[in-house]
């Protein structure tokens, strides 16, 4: 089932002691997209999420799903139509993995066999080994438990997925894997995902739309990530985005437009003439590539002797970026980290596509920013294609 549109209309949550958790919040969560609520603790982001499945009832205002008020159906029916993923997964420790995932289908009256078959299908979808089906949660790592949490939320194919800091408790490497996996799954399923995090990098990475909230339950800005980075609404948002938002924004620009140079590239079995010819191009360094086309390392042209190139004596080439797939941020990072100041671009198969200087990347960034400003102005809605890296 595809996602639905959620509209939050003038919603306020006030507690009996007078604390206002969410203050007159209105926004439209687009269907088939990931909307991220981000902000410091106490900003009301989790409260907002929990009002969508009525774990918290708003004091004022309404929330509608595809135009229907969420209070118009029995609360447990509503909740069973919304997957829910929570920090630390919140798995049922006394049930096997397959039975954890089958929880909502069973509540909906599916037969045990059908629910378990569905659970196994989902394990595959979220990248879990089927051999784990009969295990118990304590036997899984944190990252695996979180995948089970996602599978459990998806089990009854709900149109809406609510995710409350789902990846906050796992280490950064695992978190990145889970984020990539979520984006992949979302590409396949097209749910309406509402995602809460305190991590602005996570918000920018996975969000189609990002709602930045500030303490007291105020919405500070609601915009696609690229727009958020290019034009923060106020000082709070700018501060929250951090000092390197300019660099981070480069994630949204493809490296496809970079002009690569192939002239400073020589094969490891190059002849003396080839080395001399390439070295004459006024470049301080040459990139040596192996017979398989992969980069071996940098060297000054004068230090290379035809037929006697020792790969172990070359300067390290650093991590190359994939031309066209990686972003300008990845390309810049390669250039900054490279001992020669030049970044190595490879194609999808890992063969060298060319090299590019910091100066060329700088020009591409200026061009992209000029273009980005016009883009941000005329496309305010969701759907920015994101560039990996």
């Amino acid at each position, binding site marked *: 089932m595809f996602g639905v549109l959620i509209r939050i209309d003038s919603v306020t949550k006030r507690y009996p002691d007078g604390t206002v958790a969410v203050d007159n919040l209105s926004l439209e969560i687009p269907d088939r997209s990931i909307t991220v609520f981000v902000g410091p603790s106490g900003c009301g982001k989790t409260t907002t999420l929990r009002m969508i499945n009525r774990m918290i009832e708003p004091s004022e205002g309404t929330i509608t799903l595809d135009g229907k008020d969420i209070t118009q159906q029995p609360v*447990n029916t509503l909740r069973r139509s919304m997957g*829910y993923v929570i920090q630390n*997964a*919140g798995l*049922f420790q*006394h049930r096997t993995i397959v039975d954890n995932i089958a929880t909502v289908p069973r509540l909906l009256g599916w037969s045990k066999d059908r629910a378990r078959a569905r659970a196994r299908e989902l394990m595959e979808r979220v990248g879990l080994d089927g051999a784990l089906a009969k295990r118990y949660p304590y036997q899984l790592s944190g990252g695996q438990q979180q995948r089970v949490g996602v599978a459990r939320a998806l089990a009854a194919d709900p149109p809406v997925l609510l995710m409350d800091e789902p990846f906050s408790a796992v280490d950064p490497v695992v978190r990145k894997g889970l984020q990539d996996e979520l984006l992949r799954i979302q590409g396949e399923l097209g749910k309406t995902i509402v995602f809460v995090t305190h991590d602005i990098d996570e918000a920018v990475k996975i969000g189609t739309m990002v709602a930045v909230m500030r303490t007291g339950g105020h919405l500070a800005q609601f915009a696609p990530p690229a727009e958020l980075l290019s034009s923060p609404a106020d000082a709070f948002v700018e501060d929250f985005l951090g000092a390197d938002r300019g660099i981070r924004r480069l994630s949204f620009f493809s490296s496809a437009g970079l002009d690569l140079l192939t002239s400073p590239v020589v094969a490891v079995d190059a002849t003396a003439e080839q080395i001399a010819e390439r070295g004459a191009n006024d470049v301080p360094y040459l990139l040596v590539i192996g017979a398989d086309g992969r980069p071996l390392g940098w060297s000054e042209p004068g230090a290379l002797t035809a037929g006697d190139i020792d790969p172990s004596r070359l300067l390290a080439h650093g991590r190359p970026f994939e031309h066209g797939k990686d972003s300008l941020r990845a390309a810049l990072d390669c250039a900054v980290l490279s001992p020669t100041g030049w970044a190595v671009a490879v194609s999808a198969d890992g063969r060298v596509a060319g090299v590019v200087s910091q100066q060329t990347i700088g020009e591409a960034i200026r061009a992209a920013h000029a273009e980005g400003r016009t883009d941000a102005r005329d496309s305010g809605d969701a759907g920015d294609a994101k560039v990996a890296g």
Partner: protein
Amino acid sequence: MSGGLFDIPSDLQNTYWGLVGLHLREALIPVVVGLVVALPIAQLCVRLRWLYPPVLWVTTILYAIPSLAFFVVLIDYTGQTETTVMIPLGVYSLVVFVPAIVDGVRSVPQETLDAATAMGLGPVRRYFQVQLPIAAPAIIAGLRVATVSSISLVSVGMLIGNQGGLGNLLNDGMIYHQPRLIWLSVVGTAVLAILADALLVLLRVLVTPWMPRGNRRSRPVDEPEPMQAALEDAVR
């Protein structure tokens, strides 16, 4: 009387194995009834936090009343019967069960409860499908203490007209100067306690395949070990 090891005086109007059966019945029925009564009380204490301390005080005070005092009051209503022995035993078990169940249910992580709520499990399903199963190890730990303590306490029923199961042998042993009868009573009671405890450990292993191995003890709640409880009871 042929003088066999398990022969007992005819005034008890029973065989040794008959007394063992009687002893078990008088010990275990109160434990089961106590558990059934404690479950709703404990659930109330979980839902209404303010209720827990007064309930604990009441169960502790009841536990402090000697069984003899209970007999004196109850004998007017229930006579010199097994029921008179079993009522105090059932009341005593509450002091173990209520905290064991409350701690067990409270030990369910908040995330787990939130996840259950968010998936559309109502309060009843949440209780039976999530809280109770996860509290099972703590409840069984309480069951072990209550069972062993109850088995040791039954003997006192001897005082109201041979209603003490194996305890009845103690009196006869003294009257007839037969240490063998004392041994039959004491060793028999101890063996029953050990067997019952072993069965409950087995039960816990069977119902909690989901607990990490090597850490099968429910959790570090300060429950007295059954042996310690039995010693305390012996002192009473």
